[in-house]
Protein backbone atom coordinates (compact mmCIF):
# COMPACT_ATOMS: atom_id res chain seq x y z
CA UNK A 1 0.00 0.00 0.00
CA UNK A 2 2.91 2.32 0.72
CA UNK A 3 4.04 1.87 -2.86
CA UNK A 4 0.69 3.08 -4.18
CA UNK A 5 0.72 6.21 -2.07
CA UNK A 6 4.19 7.01 -3.29
CA UNK A 7 3.17 6.44 -6.87
CA UNK A 8 0.33 8.89 -6.37
CA UNK A 9 2.72 11.54 -5.06
CA UNK A 10 5.00 10.93 -8.02
CA UNK A 11 2.04 11.43 -10.30
CA UNK A 12 1.42 14.90 -8.93
CA UNK A 13 4.97 15.96 -9.73
CA UNK A 14 5.45 14.27 -13.06
CA UNK A 15 2.29 15.05 -14.92
CA UNK A 16 1.98 18.81 -14.77
CA UNK A 17 3.47 19.96 -18.05
CA UNK A 18 3.60 23.74 -18.35
CA UNK A 19 2.16 25.24 -21.54
CA UNK A 20 4.89 26.07 -24.00
CA UNK A 21 2.65 28.19 -26.23
CA UNK A 22 0.27 31.02 -25.44
CA UNK A 23 -3.32 29.78 -25.69
CA UNK A 24 -5.31 30.91 -28.70
CA UNK A 25 -8.74 30.29 -27.30
CA UNK A 26 -9.85 30.56 -23.69
CA UNK A 27 -13.21 29.08 -22.82
CA UNK A 28 -15.24 29.27 -19.61
CA UNK A 29 -18.90 28.24 -19.86
CA UNK A 30 -21.81 27.51 -17.59
CA UNK A 31 -25.08 26.30 -19.04
CA UNK A 32 -27.90 24.33 -17.45
CA UNK A 33 -30.51 22.53 -19.50
CA UNK A 34 -32.88 19.60 -19.00
CA UNK A 35 -31.29 18.35 -15.79
CA UNK A 36 -27.75 18.66 -17.17
CA UNK A 37 -25.16 21.20 -16.10
CA UNK A 38 -22.27 22.19 -18.31
CA UNK A 39 -19.48 23.85 -16.36
CA UNK A 40 -16.37 23.76 -18.51
CA UNK A 41 -13.18 25.76 -18.50
CA UNK A 42 -10.18 25.14 -20.74
CA UNK A 43 -7.73 26.67 -23.18
CA UNK A 44 -6.81 25.69 -26.72
CA UNK A 45 -3.24 26.26 -27.92
CA UNK A 46 -2.58 28.53 -30.90
CA UNK A 47 -1.42 25.66 -33.10
CA UNK A 48 -2.23 22.02 -33.68
CA UNK A 49 -5.27 19.86 -33.09
CA UNK A 50 -6.99 19.85 -29.71
CA UNK A 51 -9.37 16.95 -29.14
CA UNK A 52 -12.43 17.58 -26.98
CA UNK A 53 -12.82 13.99 -25.85
CA UNK A 54 -15.52 12.34 -23.78
CA UNK A 55 -18.47 9.95 -23.83
CA UNK A 56 -21.75 10.82 -25.56
CA UNK A 57 -23.77 13.37 -23.64
CA UNK A 58 -20.85 14.82 -21.68
CA UNK A 59 -21.44 18.29 -23.12
CA UNK A 60 -18.70 18.46 -25.73
CA UNK A 61 -20.96 19.26 -28.69
CA UNK A 62 -22.78 21.88 -26.60
CA UNK A 63 -19.41 23.43 -25.79
CA UNK A 64 -18.51 23.50 -29.48
CA UNK A 65 -21.86 25.11 -30.40
CA UNK A 66 -21.26 27.79 -27.76
CA UNK A 67 -17.82 28.56 -29.20
CA UNK A 68 -19.26 28.75 -32.74
CA UNK A 69 -21.99 31.06 -31.42
CA UNK A 70 -24.85 28.73 -32.40
CA UNK A 71 -25.83 28.37 -28.73
CA UNK A 72 -25.83 31.14 -26.18
CA UNK A 73 -24.80 29.80 -22.75
CA UNK A 74 -26.35 31.21 -19.60
CA UNK A 75 -22.98 32.42 -18.39
CA UNK A 76 -19.54 32.37 -19.85
CA UNK A 77 -16.56 34.01 -21.46
CA UNK A 78 -14.83 32.97 -24.67
CA UNK A 79 -11.83 34.89 -25.91
CA UNK A 80 -9.76 34.38 -29.03
CA UNK A 81 -6.25 35.80 -28.77
CA UNK A 82 -7.45 38.02 -25.95
CA UNK A 83 -10.50 39.41 -27.81
CA UNK A 84 -13.88 38.48 -26.32
CA UNK A 85 -16.33 36.66 -28.60
CA UNK A 86 -18.64 36.03 -25.68
CA UNK A 87 -18.70 37.66 -22.28
CA UNK A 88 -22.08 37.41 -20.60
CA UNK A 89 -20.90 39.62 -17.71
CA UNK A 90 -20.23 42.47 -20.13
CA UNK A 91 -23.16 41.66 -22.42
CA UNK A 92 -20.95 40.67 -25.36
CA UNK A 93 -22.13 37.92 -27.70
CA UNK A 94 -20.82 38.04 -31.26
CA UNK A 95 -23.06 36.54 -33.96
CA UNK A 96 -21.67 33.31 -35.46
CA UNK A 97 -21.09 35.04 -38.79
CA UNK A 98 -18.71 37.48 -37.07
CA UNK A 99 -16.69 34.97 -35.03
CA UNK A 100 -14.46 33.59 -37.76
CA UNK A 101 -14.97 30.01 -36.59
CA UNK A 102 -15.23 27.47 -39.40
CA UNK A 103 -17.43 24.54 -38.41
CA UNK A 104 -17.48 21.01 -39.82
CA UNK A 105 -20.70 19.34 -38.67
CA UNK A 106 -21.33 15.64 -38.17
CA UNK A 107 -23.83 15.77 -41.05
CA UNK A 108 -21.89 17.65 -43.73
CA UNK A 109 -24.66 20.25 -44.20
CA UNK A 110 -23.70 21.04 -47.78
CA UNK A 111 -26.11 23.36 -49.59
CA UNK A 112 -28.14 20.97 -51.80
CA UNK A 113 -28.96 23.58 -54.45
CA UNK A 114 -25.31 24.46 -55.09
CA UNK A 115 -22.58 22.52 -56.88
CA UNK A 116 -19.52 21.32 -54.95
CA UNK A 117 -17.51 24.22 -56.40
CA UNK A 118 -20.14 26.76 -55.26
CA UNK A 119 -20.34 25.12 -51.84
CA UNK A 120 -16.55 25.44 -51.50
CA UNK A 121 -16.72 29.08 -52.55
CA UNK A 122 -19.62 30.02 -50.25
CA UNK A 123 -17.50 30.95 -47.25
CA UNK A 124 -14.52 32.09 -49.35
CA UNK A 125 -16.69 34.75 -51.05
CA UNK A 126 -17.74 36.06 -47.65
CA UNK A 127 -14.33 36.04 -45.98
CA UNK A 128 -13.62 39.69 -45.33
CA UNK A 129 -10.32 41.51 -45.42
CA UNK A 130 -9.85 40.67 -41.73
CA UNK A 131 -9.76 36.93 -42.47
CA UNK A 132 -6.62 34.96 -41.75
CA UNK A 133 -4.30 34.02 -44.60
CA UNK A 134 -4.70 30.50 -45.85
CA UNK A 135 -4.51 28.12 -48.78
CA UNK A 136 -6.29 29.05 -52.01
CA UNK A 137 -9.09 27.25 -53.83
CA UNK A 138 -6.81 25.12 -56.03
CA UNK A 139 -4.63 24.13 -53.09
CA UNK A 140 -7.58 23.03 -50.97
CA UNK A 141 -9.10 21.10 -53.88
CA UNK A 142 -5.78 19.27 -54.36
CA UNK A 143 -5.27 18.72 -50.62
CA UNK A 144 -8.68 17.06 -50.23
CA UNK A 145 -8.75 15.30 -53.62
CA UNK A 146 -11.88 17.09 -54.84
CA UNK A 147 -10.81 17.63 -58.47
CA UNK A 148 -13.35 15.20 -59.95
CA UNK A 149 -16.28 16.36 -57.83
CA UNK A 150 -16.44 20.10 -58.47
CA UNK A 151 -19.42 20.13 -60.86
CA UNK A 152 -21.52 17.62 -58.89
CA UNK A 153 -24.46 18.31 -56.62
CA UNK A 154 -24.13 17.17 -53.00
CA UNK A 155 -26.88 14.57 -53.54
CA UNK A 156 -24.54 12.79 -55.97
CA UNK A 157 -21.72 12.42 -53.39
CA UNK A 158 -20.94 9.58 -50.96
CA UNK A 159 -20.87 10.33 -47.23
CA UNK A 160 -17.08 10.48 -47.21
CA UNK A 161 -16.96 12.80 -50.22
CA UNK A 162 -19.54 15.10 -48.61
CA UNK A 163 -17.42 15.35 -45.47
CA UNK A 164 -14.30 16.15 -47.50
CA UNK A 165 -16.19 18.95 -49.28
CA UNK A 166 -17.40 20.23 -45.89
CA UNK A 167 -13.79 20.30 -44.66
CA UNK A 168 -12.73 22.28 -47.72
CA UNK A 169 -15.66 24.68 -47.42
CA UNK A 170 -14.83 25.46 -43.78
CA UNK A 171 -11.11 25.86 -44.50
CA UNK A 172 -11.70 28.16 -47.50
CA UNK A 173 -13.74 30.56 -45.35
CA UNK A 174 -10.33 31.48 -43.87
CA UNK A 175 -11.37 30.90 -40.26
CA UNK A 176 -9.25 31.83 -37.26
CA UNK A 177 -10.32 28.59 -35.62
CA UNK A 178 -11.67 25.36 -37.11
CA UNK A 179 -14.32 23.54 -35.08
CA UNK A 180 -15.11 19.94 -35.95
CA UNK A 181 -18.10 18.23 -34.34
CA UNK A 182 -17.49 14.47 -34.68
CA UNK A 183 -16.96 14.78 -38.44
CA UNK A 184 -16.48 11.01 -38.83
CA UNK A 185 -19.16 9.75 -36.44
CA UNK A 186 -21.91 9.48 -39.07
CA UNK A 187 -19.72 7.45 -41.47
CA UNK A 188 -19.27 3.69 -41.58
CA UNK A 189 -15.82 2.23 -40.88
CA UNK A 190 -14.76 2.13 -44.55
CA UNK A 191 -15.78 5.74 -45.17
CA UNK A 192 -14.04 6.75 -41.95
CA UNK A 193 -10.77 5.20 -43.10
CA UNK A 194 -11.22 7.06 -46.40
CA UNK A 195 -11.65 10.49 -44.76
CA UNK A 196 -9.19 10.17 -41.87
CA UNK A 197 -6.02 10.55 -44.00
CA UNK A 198 -7.48 13.72 -45.55
CA UNK A 199 -8.22 15.07 -42.07
CA UNK A 200 -4.63 14.33 -41.02
CA UNK A 201 -3.32 16.04 -44.16
CA UNK A 202 -5.51 19.07 -43.52
CA UNK A 203 -4.39 19.25 -39.88
CA UNK A 204 -0.77 19.13 -41.00
CA UNK A 205 -1.21 21.65 -43.81
CA UNK A 206 -3.10 24.39 -41.98
CA UNK A 207 -1.76 26.85 -39.44
CA UNK A 208 -5.28 27.35 -38.04
CA UNK A 209 -5.85 25.76 -34.63
CA UNK A 210 -8.42 22.96 -34.72
CA UNK A 211 -10.82 21.96 -31.94
CA UNK A 212 -11.97 18.43 -32.68
CA UNK A 213 -14.91 16.87 -30.82
CA UNK A 214 -14.79 13.08 -30.70
CA UNK A 215 -15.48 10.04 -28.58
CA UNK A 216 -13.00 7.90 -30.53
CA UNK A 217 -9.56 7.42 -28.99
CA UNK A 218 -8.30 6.21 -32.36
CA UNK A 219 -9.08 9.62 -33.88
CA UNK A 220 -7.37 11.33 -30.93
CA UNK A 221 -4.20 9.27 -31.48
CA UNK A 222 -4.30 9.91 -35.17
CA UNK A 223 -4.96 13.64 -35.13
CA UNK A 224 -4.64 15.38 -31.81
CA UNK A 225 -1.69 17.02 -30.14
CA UNK A 226 -3.63 18.19 -27.12
CA UNK A 227 -6.62 16.69 -25.37
CA UNK A 228 -9.39 18.19 -23.25
CA UNK A 229 -11.07 15.36 -21.40
CA UNK A 230 -14.74 15.92 -20.48
CA UNK A 231 -17.06 14.00 -18.23
CA UNK A 232 -20.59 14.94 -17.07
CA UNK A 233 -20.27 18.53 -18.28
CA UNK A 234 -16.90 19.16 -16.64
CA UNK A 235 -13.32 19.23 -17.85
CA UNK A 236 -11.51 16.40 -16.08
CA UNK A 237 -8.05 16.90 -17.57
CA UNK A 238 -6.36 19.03 -20.21
CA UNK A 239 -2.89 18.63 -21.70
CA UNK A 240 -0.72 17.03 -24.39
CA UNK A 241 -2.02 13.64 -25.56
CA UNK A 242 1.26 11.93 -24.58
CA UNK A 243 1.03 13.28 -21.03
CA UNK A 244 -2.62 12.37 -20.54
CA UNK A 245 -2.06 8.88 -21.92
CA UNK A 246 0.19 8.21 -18.90
CA UNK A 247 -2.47 9.18 -16.35
CA UNK A 248 -3.81 6.09 -14.64
CA UNK A 249 -6.27 8.10 -12.54
CA UNK A 250 -8.52 8.94 -15.53
CA UNK A 251 -11.00 6.05 -15.88
CA UNK A 252 -12.03 7.20 -19.37
CA UNK A 253 -8.49 6.58 -20.60
CA UNK A 254 -6.98 4.09 -18.15
CA UNK A 255 -10.12 1.94 -18.00
CA UNK A 256 -10.03 1.19 -21.70
CA UNK A 257 -8.73 -1.98 -23.28
CA UNK A 258 -6.39 0.11 -25.42
CA UNK A 259 -5.06 2.18 -22.51
CA UNK A 260 -1.37 2.84 -22.79
CA UNK A 261 1.42 5.32 -23.39
CA UNK A 262 1.47 7.41 -26.55
CA UNK A 263 4.98 8.07 -27.73
CA UNK A 264 6.46 10.13 -30.50
CA UNK A 265 9.33 8.67 -32.47
CA UNK A 266 11.24 9.10 -35.72
CA UNK A 267 11.76 6.56 -38.48
CA UNK A 268 15.53 6.11 -37.97
CA UNK A 269 16.46 3.34 -40.44
CA UNK A 270 14.95 0.63 -42.61
CA UNK A 271 16.52 -2.84 -42.32
CA UNK A 272 15.30 -4.48 -45.54
CA UNK A 273 17.34 -7.70 -45.04
CA UNK A 274 15.49 -8.31 -41.75
CA UNK A 275 12.15 -6.87 -42.91
CA UNK A 276 12.18 -4.39 -40.03
CA UNK A 277 12.28 -0.67 -39.39
CA UNK A 278 14.05 1.04 -36.48
CA UNK A 279 12.19 3.82 -34.69
CA UNK A 280 14.05 6.13 -32.31
CA UNK A 281 12.50 7.89 -29.33
CA UNK A 282 14.20 9.99 -26.64
CA UNK A 283 16.35 7.51 -24.75
CA UNK A 284 15.78 4.37 -26.78
CA UNK A 285 14.76 2.67 -30.01
CA UNK A 286 12.26 0.06 -31.22
CA UNK A 287 12.30 -2.51 -34.00
CA UNK A 288 8.96 -2.84 -35.78
CA UNK A 289 7.77 -4.67 -38.90
CA UNK A 290 8.89 -2.83 -42.03
CA UNK A 291 7.08 0.51 -42.45
CA UNK A 292 6.41 2.50 -45.59
CA UNK A 293 7.37 5.95 -44.31
CA UNK A 294 10.67 7.56 -45.34
CA UNK A 295 13.44 7.85 -42.74
CA UNK A 296 13.11 11.01 -40.70
CA UNK A 297 9.30 10.82 -40.65
CA UNK A 298 7.75 11.59 -37.27
CA UNK A 299 5.36 8.91 -36.04
CA UNK A 300 3.13 8.59 -33.05
CA UNK A 301 2.25 5.23 -31.64
CA UNK A 302 0.20 4.03 -28.73
CA UNK A 303 1.89 1.24 -26.81
CA UNK A 304 -0.97 -0.47 -25.04
CA UNK A 305 -0.29 -1.40 -21.44
CA UNK A 306 -1.53 -4.96 -22.01
CA UNK A 307 1.13 -5.44 -24.70
CA UNK A 308 4.00 -4.60 -22.31
CA UNK A 309 5.35 -7.28 -19.95
CA UNK A 310 8.32 -7.07 -17.59
CA UNK A 311 11.20 -9.35 -16.55
CA UNK A 312 13.64 -8.92 -13.67
CA UNK A 313 16.58 -10.22 -15.70
CA UNK A 314 17.34 -9.89 -19.41
CA UNK A 315 15.52 -12.80 -21.03
CA UNK A 316 17.12 -14.79 -23.87
CA UNK A 317 15.78 -16.89 -26.68
CA UNK A 318 12.72 -14.71 -27.28
CA UNK A 319 10.81 -14.07 -30.47
CA UNK A 320 10.10 -10.56 -29.22
CA UNK A 321 12.37 -7.92 -30.79
CA UNK A 322 11.99 -5.20 -28.24
CA UNK A 323 13.45 -5.83 -24.83
CA UNK A 324 14.25 -2.47 -23.30
CA UNK A 325 16.00 -1.64 -20.03
CA UNK A 326 13.50 0.10 -17.79
CA UNK A 327 13.16 1.42 -14.27
CA UNK A 328 9.99 0.89 -12.27
CA UNK A 329 8.73 4.32 -11.22
CA UNK A 330 5.39 3.46 -9.67
CA UNK A 331 2.64 0.94 -9.21
CA UNK A 332 -0.94 2.14 -9.67
CA UNK A 333 -4.32 0.42 -9.47
CA UNK A 334 -6.40 -0.46 -12.51
CA UNK A 335 -10.17 -0.77 -12.68
CA UNK A 336 -9.72 -4.55 -12.30
CA UNK A 337 -8.98 -5.64 -8.73
CA UNK A 338 -6.52 -8.35 -9.81
CA UNK A 339 -4.35 -6.12 -12.01
CA UNK A 340 -2.08 -3.09 -11.63
CA UNK A 341 -0.38 -0.59 -13.93
CA UNK A 342 3.42 -0.46 -13.74
CA UNK A 343 4.82 2.94 -14.64
CA UNK A 344 8.14 2.35 -16.38
CA UNK A 345 10.84 4.83 -17.40
CA UNK A 346 12.62 3.80 -20.61
CA UNK A 347 15.22 6.49 -21.23
CA UNK A 348 13.22 9.71 -21.12
CA UNK A 349 10.04 7.96 -22.22
CA UNK A 350 7.40 6.61 -19.88
CA UNK A 351 5.53 3.39 -20.63
CA UNK A 352 2.65 1.68 -18.90
CA UNK A 353 2.50 -2.06 -18.35
CA UNK A 354 -0.50 -3.96 -17.12
CA UNK A 355 0.33 -6.98 -14.96
CA UNK A 356 -1.47 -9.08 -12.33
CA UNK A 357 -1.09 -8.41 -8.63
CA UNK A 358 0.16 -11.97 -8.40
CA UNK A 359 3.07 -11.15 -10.74
CA UNK A 360 3.77 -8.01 -8.72
CA UNK A 361 4.07 -10.08 -5.52
CA UNK A 362 5.91 -12.99 -7.16
CA UNK A 363 8.61 -10.74 -8.64
CA UNK A 364 8.66 -8.55 -5.49
CA UNK A 365 8.54 -5.42 -7.63
CA UNK A 366 9.32 -2.17 -5.81
CA UNK A 367 9.58 1.35 -7.25
CA UNK A 368 13.15 1.98 -8.31
CA UNK A 369 13.73 -1.60 -9.42
CA UNK A 370 15.72 -2.14 -12.64
CA UNK A 371 13.61 -4.23 -15.05
CA UNK A 372 13.36 -5.27 -18.68
CA UNK A 373 10.27 -4.18 -20.60
CA UNK A 374 9.07 -6.63 -23.28
CA UNK A 375 6.95 -5.07 -26.06
CA UNK A 376 4.73 -7.25 -28.24
CA UNK A 377 4.66 -6.45 -31.94
CA UNK A 378 0.87 -6.00 -31.78
CA UNK A 379 1.57 -2.64 -30.19
CA UNK A 380 2.87 -1.15 -33.40
CA UNK A 381 -0.07 -1.64 -35.74
CA UNK A 382 -1.60 1.67 -34.84
CA UNK A 383 1.44 3.87 -35.53
CA UNK A 384 0.40 7.00 -37.40
CA UNK A 385 2.34 9.53 -39.33
CA UNK A 386 2.34 13.04 -37.92
CA UNK A 387 1.66 16.12 -40.03
Amino acid at each position, binding site marked *: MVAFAKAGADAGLTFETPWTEAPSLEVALRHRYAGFTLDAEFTVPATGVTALFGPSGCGKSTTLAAIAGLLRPQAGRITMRGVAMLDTARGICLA*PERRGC*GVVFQDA*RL*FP*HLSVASNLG*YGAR*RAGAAAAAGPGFAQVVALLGLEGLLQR*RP*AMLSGGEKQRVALGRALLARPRLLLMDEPLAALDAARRDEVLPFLARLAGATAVPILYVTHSLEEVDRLADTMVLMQDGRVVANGPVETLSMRTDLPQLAGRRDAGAVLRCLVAAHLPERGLTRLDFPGGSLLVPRRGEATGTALRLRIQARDVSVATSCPEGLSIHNVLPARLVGVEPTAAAAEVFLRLAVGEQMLLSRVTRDALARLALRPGAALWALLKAASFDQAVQLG
Partner: protein
Amino acid sequence: MPLLLDAEGWDAVRLSLLVAGNSVAIGLPPAAMTGWLLARTRFPGRALLDALAHLPLVLPPVVIGWMLLVVLGLRGPVGAWLDAWFGIRLAFTREGAAIATAVMSFPLIVRAVRLSLEGADPGLEAAARTLGAGPLDRFVTVTVPMMAPGLLAGAVTAFAASLGEFGAVITFVSNIPGETQTLPLAIYSATQSPGGEAQAARFAGVSFILAVSGLLLAEVLARHMRRALGRAG
Protein backbone atom coordinates in the same frame (compact mmCIF):
# COMPACT_ATOMS: atom_id res chain seq x y z
CA MET B 1 -63.54 24.19 -79.45
CA PRO B 2 -62.10 27.46 -77.99
CA LEU B 3 -62.64 29.02 -81.44
CA LEU B 4 -66.33 28.55 -80.86
CA LEU B 5 -66.29 31.11 -78.05
CA ASP B 6 -67.76 34.47 -78.86
CA ALA B 7 -66.05 37.78 -78.04
CA GLU B 8 -67.70 37.91 -74.64
CA GLY B 9 -66.50 34.38 -73.92
CA TRP B 10 -62.89 35.29 -74.81
CA ASP B 11 -63.18 38.30 -72.50
CA ALA B 12 -64.10 36.00 -69.65
CA VAL B 13 -61.09 33.71 -70.34
CA ARG B 14 -58.65 36.64 -70.60
CA LEU B 15 -60.09 38.25 -67.49
CA SER B 16 -59.85 34.99 -65.54
CA LEU B 17 -56.17 34.58 -66.45
CA LEU B 18 -55.46 38.23 -65.60
CA VAL B 19 -57.25 38.04 -62.25
CA ALA B 20 -55.52 34.75 -61.34
CA GLY B 21 -52.09 36.10 -62.35
CA ASN B 22 -52.55 39.30 -60.35
CA SER B 23 -53.90 37.33 -57.45
CA VAL B 24 -50.75 35.17 -57.26
CA ALA B 25 -48.53 38.24 -57.65
CA ILE B 26 -50.31 39.99 -54.76
CA GLY B 27 -50.59 36.93 -52.53
CA LEU B 28 -47.20 35.23 -52.99
CA PRO B 29 -44.91 37.61 -51.04
CA PRO B 30 -47.04 37.92 -47.86
CA ALA B 31 -48.02 34.24 -47.96
CA ALA B 32 -44.37 33.15 -48.35
CA MET B 33 -43.40 35.41 -45.45
CA THR B 34 -46.18 33.94 -43.32
CA GLY B 35 -45.11 30.40 -44.22
CA TRP B 36 -41.54 31.23 -43.22
CA LEU B 37 -42.66 32.82 -39.93
CA LEU B 38 -44.73 29.76 -39.05
CA ALA B 39 -42.00 27.26 -40.02
CA ARG B 40 -38.90 28.97 -38.66
CA THR B 41 -39.76 31.34 -35.84
CA ARG B 42 -41.40 31.28 -32.42
CA PHE B 43 -43.15 34.42 -31.23
CA PRO B 44 -46.17 35.30 -29.11
CA GLY B 45 -49.29 35.27 -31.26
CA ARG B 46 -47.91 32.60 -33.59
CA ALA B 47 -50.94 30.35 -33.01
CA LEU B 48 -53.24 33.29 -33.80
CA LEU B 49 -51.40 34.01 -37.05
CA ASP B 50 -51.61 30.32 -37.94
CA ALA B 51 -55.39 30.35 -37.39
CA LEU B 52 -55.89 33.62 -39.32
CA ALA B 53 -53.86 32.34 -42.27
CA HIS B 54 -56.09 29.26 -42.48
CA LEU B 55 -59.40 31.08 -42.06
CA PRO B 56 -60.18 31.26 -45.82
CA LEU B 57 -59.99 27.44 -45.97
CA VAL B 58 -62.75 26.96 -43.41
CA LEU B 59 -65.00 30.01 -43.81
CA PRO B 60 -67.64 30.00 -46.58
CA PRO B 61 -66.18 32.04 -49.51
CA VAL B 62 -69.30 34.22 -49.42
CA VAL B 63 -68.37 35.28 -45.88
CA ILE B 64 -64.86 36.24 -47.02
CA GLY B 65 -66.40 38.26 -49.89
CA TRP B 66 -68.78 39.96 -47.50
CA MET B 67 -65.95 40.80 -45.06
CA LEU B 68 -63.93 42.30 -47.91
CA LEU B 69 -66.94 44.35 -48.91
CA VAL B 70 -67.36 45.63 -45.34
CA VAL B 71 -63.68 46.58 -45.01
CA LEU B 72 -62.68 47.51 -48.56
CA GLY B 73 -66.06 48.63 -49.93
CA LEU B 74 -66.61 52.29 -50.72
CA ARG B 75 -68.12 52.87 -47.26
CA GLY B 76 -65.70 50.52 -45.46
CA PRO B 77 -62.97 52.06 -43.29
CA VAL B 78 -60.10 51.07 -45.60
CA GLY B 79 -62.08 51.37 -48.85
CA ALA B 80 -63.25 54.92 -48.09
CA TRP B 81 -59.72 55.95 -47.19
CA LEU B 82 -58.26 54.44 -50.39
CA ASP B 83 -60.89 56.24 -52.44
CA ALA B 84 -60.40 59.59 -50.70
CA TRP B 85 -56.59 59.65 -50.85
CA PHE B 86 -55.68 57.66 -53.96
CA GLY B 87 -58.90 57.38 -55.91
CA ILE B 88 -58.56 53.58 -55.75
CA ARG B 89 -61.80 51.63 -55.80
CA LEU B 90 -61.70 47.88 -55.25
CA ALA B 91 -65.32 46.89 -54.91
CA PHE B 92 -66.87 45.92 -58.27
CA THR B 93 -63.48 46.11 -60.11
CA ARG B 94 -61.11 43.49 -61.55
CA GLU B 95 -58.42 44.60 -59.02
CA GLY B 96 -60.94 43.79 -56.31
CA ALA B 97 -61.46 40.38 -57.91
CA ALA B 98 -57.70 39.72 -57.74
CA ILE B 99 -57.67 40.67 -54.05
CA ALA B 100 -60.64 38.42 -53.28
CA THR B 101 -58.99 35.41 -54.98
CA ALA B 102 -55.62 36.25 -53.34
CA VAL B 103 -57.26 36.09 -49.91
CA MET B 104 -58.98 32.81 -50.78
CA SER B 105 -55.75 31.16 -52.03
CA PHE B 106 -53.51 32.63 -49.29
CA PRO B 107 -53.59 29.48 -47.09
CA LEU B 108 -52.64 27.28 -50.08
CA ILE B 109 -49.33 29.13 -50.53
CA VAL B 110 -48.68 29.36 -46.78
CA ARG B 111 -49.09 25.60 -46.40
CA ALA B 112 -46.89 24.74 -49.37
CA VAL B 113 -44.06 27.06 -48.29
CA ARG B 114 -44.29 25.89 -44.72
CA LEU B 115 -44.14 22.23 -45.74
CA SER B 116 -41.06 22.71 -47.91
CA LEU B 117 -39.27 24.63 -45.13
CA GLU B 118 -40.17 22.07 -42.48
CA GLY B 119 -38.72 19.38 -44.76
CA ALA B 120 -35.45 21.32 -45.10
CA ASP B 121 -32.66 21.05 -42.53
CA PRO B 122 -32.48 24.24 -40.40
CA GLY B 123 -28.84 23.25 -39.85
CA LEU B 124 -28.13 24.58 -43.34
CA GLU B 125 -28.92 28.10 -42.15
CA ALA B 126 -26.63 27.56 -39.13
CA ALA B 127 -23.90 26.36 -41.51
CA ALA B 128 -24.35 29.52 -43.60
CA ARG B 129 -23.94 31.62 -40.45
CA THR B 130 -20.63 29.97 -39.58
CA LEU B 131 -19.49 30.67 -43.14
CA GLY B 132 -20.03 34.39 -42.61
CA ALA B 133 -23.51 34.94 -44.09
CA GLY B 134 -25.58 37.65 -42.37
CA PRO B 135 -29.40 37.47 -41.94
CA LEU B 136 -30.49 38.83 -45.35
CA ASP B 137 -27.63 37.07 -47.15
CA ARG B 138 -28.54 33.63 -45.79
CA PHE B 139 -32.25 34.22 -46.32
CA VAL B 140 -31.64 34.89 -50.01
CA THR B 141 -28.92 32.30 -50.63
CA VAL B 142 -30.14 29.42 -48.43
CA THR B 143 -33.70 29.89 -47.16
CA VAL B 144 -35.33 31.01 -50.42
CA PRO B 145 -33.84 28.11 -52.43
CA MET B 146 -35.15 25.75 -49.69
CA MET B 147 -38.60 27.36 -50.04
CA ALA B 148 -38.54 27.25 -53.85
CA PRO B 149 -40.45 23.95 -54.32
CA GLY B 150 -43.16 25.22 -51.96
CA LEU B 151 -43.30 28.61 -53.67
CA LEU B 152 -43.78 26.89 -57.02
CA ALA B 153 -46.36 24.38 -55.84
CA GLY B 154 -48.17 27.10 -53.88
CA ALA B 155 -48.19 29.51 -56.81
CA VAL B 156 -49.55 26.92 -59.24
CA THR B 157 -52.33 25.71 -56.93
CA ALA B 158 -53.18 29.30 -56.02
CA PHE B 159 -53.40 30.21 -59.72
CA ALA B 160 -55.68 27.26 -60.43
CA ALA B 161 -57.84 27.98 -57.39
CA SER B 162 -58.08 31.65 -58.41
CA LEU B 163 -59.34 30.67 -61.87
CA GLY B 164 -62.18 28.81 -60.20
CA GLU B 165 -63.04 31.13 -57.29
CA PHE B 166 -66.74 31.94 -57.26
CA GLY B 167 -68.28 32.90 -53.95
CA ALA B 168 -65.83 35.53 -52.73
CA VAL B 169 -65.59 37.13 -56.16
CA ILE B 170 -69.31 37.43 -56.82
CA THR B 171 -69.97 38.78 -53.32
CA PHE B 172 -67.18 41.39 -53.35
CA VAL B 173 -67.06 42.53 -56.97
CA SER B 174 -70.34 41.24 -58.39
CA ASN B 175 -70.75 39.73 -61.89
CA ILE B 176 -70.01 42.47 -64.42
CA PRO B 177 -69.23 41.20 -67.95
CA GLY B 178 -65.83 42.50 -69.12
CA GLU B 179 -64.90 43.76 -65.66
CA THR B 180 -65.42 41.09 -63.02
CA GLN B 181 -67.09 38.21 -64.87
CA THR B 182 -64.47 35.45 -64.66
CA LEU B 183 -65.04 31.94 -66.09
CA PRO B 184 -66.99 30.42 -63.20
CA LEU B 185 -69.20 33.51 -63.05
CA ALA B 186 -69.73 33.36 -66.80
CA ILE B 187 -70.71 29.68 -66.51
CA TYR B 188 -73.15 30.58 -63.75
CA SER B 189 -74.68 33.37 -65.90
CA ALA B 190 -74.93 31.04 -68.90
CA THR B 191 -76.80 28.41 -66.88
CA GLN B 192 -79.18 31.12 -65.65
CA SER B 193 -80.06 32.40 -69.14
CA PRO B 194 -82.48 30.53 -71.43
CA GLY B 195 -80.62 28.51 -74.09
CA GLY B 196 -77.27 29.07 -72.41
CA GLU B 197 -76.45 25.36 -71.99
CA ALA B 198 -74.12 25.26 -75.04
CA GLN B 199 -72.26 28.35 -73.82
CA ALA B 200 -71.94 26.85 -70.33
CA ALA B 201 -70.53 23.62 -71.82
CA ARG B 202 -67.94 25.53 -73.86
CA PHE B 203 -66.84 27.50 -70.78
CA ALA B 204 -66.63 24.31 -68.79
CA GLY B 205 -64.43 22.79 -71.53
CA VAL B 206 -62.09 25.79 -71.39
CA SER B 207 -61.92 25.52 -67.60
CA PHE B 208 -61.04 21.85 -67.95
CA ILE B 209 -58.23 22.53 -70.46
CA LEU B 210 -56.77 25.32 -68.30
CA ALA B 211 -56.78 23.12 -65.21
CA VAL B 212 -55.10 20.15 -66.91
CA SER B 213 -52.43 22.38 -68.54
CA GLY B 214 -51.75 23.96 -65.17
CA LEU B 215 -51.26 20.56 -63.52
CA LEU B 216 -48.90 19.36 -66.28
CA LEU B 217 -46.86 22.57 -66.13
CA ALA B 218 -46.59 22.30 -62.35
CA GLU B 219 -45.38 18.71 -62.60
CA VAL B 220 -42.69 19.58 -65.16
CA LEU B 221 -41.47 22.56 -63.12
CA ALA B 222 -41.48 20.59 -59.86
CA ARG B 223 -39.41 17.79 -61.40
CA HIS B 224 -36.91 20.31 -62.72
CA MET B 225 -36.69 22.00 -59.33
CA ARG B 226 -36.26 18.76 -57.39
CA ARG B 227 -33.34 17.94 -59.66
CA ALA B 228 -31.85 21.39 -59.06
CA LEU B 229 -32.11 20.84 -55.31
CA GLY B 230 -30.58 17.41 -55.65
CA ARG B 231 -33.54 15.66 -54.08
CA ALA B 232 -34.75 12.26 -55.10
CA GLY B 233 -37.20 12.07 -57.95
